């Protein structure tokens, strides 16, 4: 009946052992960029930055035309920081700071060189896709993800974006007096289309 005296040494007495700390031991296969959905993240980030980059390339003043070269330089710096943030967010999806910085850089680039409403909408959709891709990548690094279940769980986000984006684009494309009715009409139409698709 006599068992050896308990030896608390080595055991975490007081009884709290976190799994979160231990789950950090799960190393992603293939290094930081080779696991999960890093390629999806990079693709979404590239699309996100591509719109302001393309606008910048087309809208920059030609040398000697008298435009402001400072804006172009600033835009280039912002886009470079955005690209770096995309890469870092893909490498370390657990931290949301880099993803937020990438989106902020994109927004700043759009402020510096405003595109058409369609470009803004596409860029916003690309931002959303990038954020969702980062989320998927992060989850995939901590364990296997059932993609169809994941997409089903995130369907409300896609539906929300699908309703608001066309409405906003349409509202921005018409005269100000018509923007609200047009936005409402397009929004309702988008809702109907989404209801038909996801019924």
């Amino acid at each position, binding site marked *: 009946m006599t068992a050896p005296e308990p030896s608390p040494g080595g055991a975490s007495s007081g009884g709290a052992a976190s799994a979160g*700390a231990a789950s950090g031991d799960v190393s992603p296969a293939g290094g930081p960029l080779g696991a999960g959905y890093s390629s999806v993240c990079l693709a979404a980030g590239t699309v996100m930055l591509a719109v302001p980059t393309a606008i910048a390339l087309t809208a920059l003043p030609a040398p000697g035309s008298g435009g402001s070269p400072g804006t172009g330089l600033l835009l280039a710096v912002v886009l470079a920081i955005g690209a770096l943030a995309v890469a870092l967010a893909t490498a370390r999806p657990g931290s949301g700071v880099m993803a937020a910085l990438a989106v902020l850089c994109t927004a700043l680039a759009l402020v510096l060189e405003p595109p058409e409403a369609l470009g803004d909408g596409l860029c916003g959709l690309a931002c959303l896709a990038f954020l969702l891709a980062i989320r998927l990548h992060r989850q995939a690094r901590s364990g296997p993800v059932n993609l169809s279940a994941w997409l089903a769980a995130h369907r409300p986000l896609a539906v929300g974006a699908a309703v608001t984006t066309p409405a906003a684009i349409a509202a921005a494309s018409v005269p100000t007096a018509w923007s609200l009715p047009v936005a409402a009409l397009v929004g309702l139409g988008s809702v109907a289309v989404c209801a038909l698709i996801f019924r």
Partner: protein
Amino acid sequence: MDGKIDWESADWVFGVVTAGVLAALAVVAAGRFDLVVFGAPLLGALAGAWWSSRPDRTVRVSAELSAERVFEGDSIILRVQLTAPPGTELLDAELRTGAELGAVPLGVRHLTPEVLRGEWELHALRWGRAVVRMRVTTRGAAGLLVGGAQCAVTEVAIFPNADRISAVPRPMDLPDLLGVHLGRRKGEGVEFAGLREYQPGDPLRAVNWPVSARRGQLYVTERLAEQAAKVVTMIDASGDVRQTGGSTLELSVHGALAVVQAALRREDRAGVVALGGVVRWLAPDLGRRHFYRVVEALLDVQPGSGSAPSNADGFPRTVLPRGAAIVVFSPLLDERVISAVVDLRRRGFGLVVVDVLRAEPQPRPGADYDPIAIRMWRLGRRGIRYRLAELGIPVGTWSEGAELDEVLRPMSLRPLMGSRR
């Protein structure tokens, strides 16, 4: 087993919504409506996630233990699988075991974002019923909601270890039970008690032929009966003083179990009474199964003064049979328990008291009167011991580093004197 998740907004949601509103105001003020178009998909996604159906609140827990009953010092393996509702994400799982168990994570991994499987090694540190719980953190609605759940995983019964002792006090008056002790009663035994003249009905094998031949008439040999004793251990759980080498309650439980084990080993009847928050008792009995009944009863002993009696009437009658030797484990701090012990002695029970208090009050630095108060406290304790000794109740102090056997041996040399009723 299931746990209920309490969902609430994630910490960042408020900040993001505030920043979004401020940005929208700035955009409108600057007349840059095109930027509203940029933010429209993100706002739509946010609204879609917020107004989507709320995630389920149930997190399922399945646990597997390598053993549900262990002794102090043993280690067991706990395997847990947590399943969060579909569409949510299990972020963290924290095992909470209380003071009785220590936990070391062996491996924790996500099978899917909703399913987490973990393995822990649990070390039994202190006797008692240890309830293992798990604090689970989840994330739902695409990260907008964060949930927390408290789940009961399993319960582990940790039995106290018993020191192996041989010295157990026994009463002078032994009951008519077959055992190993030589009492004053004559009967069937091997120990010589005396000679007497043959009476009709005496068995012929009892006739002492050499004596009969010398004296010219038949004499028979009388022998001492071999009887069993009844030993009751009493635990004073009216308080629990923390001290080095184990709290008073821990020492009491370990000591009581050691006495019960030693008594049962020599075929005596042993019982236990715990006086504390809830009275727990087991009437004296014998056998290995009874030992485990005692152990189970001791697991539920909790400190508290609710049931501390002030006289012998406070004890259940069946628990303290006539002629039983009573071994009291007490810090001698509760006057009601001391009065009850005195009352038991006056009613004829043979008692010994083991003082399990090792700690002393410490004087506060700079307080002039504290050393005097402590001296008075020591005098009071000496007075209590003197009072008990005057009544024929030996008191032994279970000091640090001493074995219980050393404490009980001087009190076990002679049978405990009780009074015949």
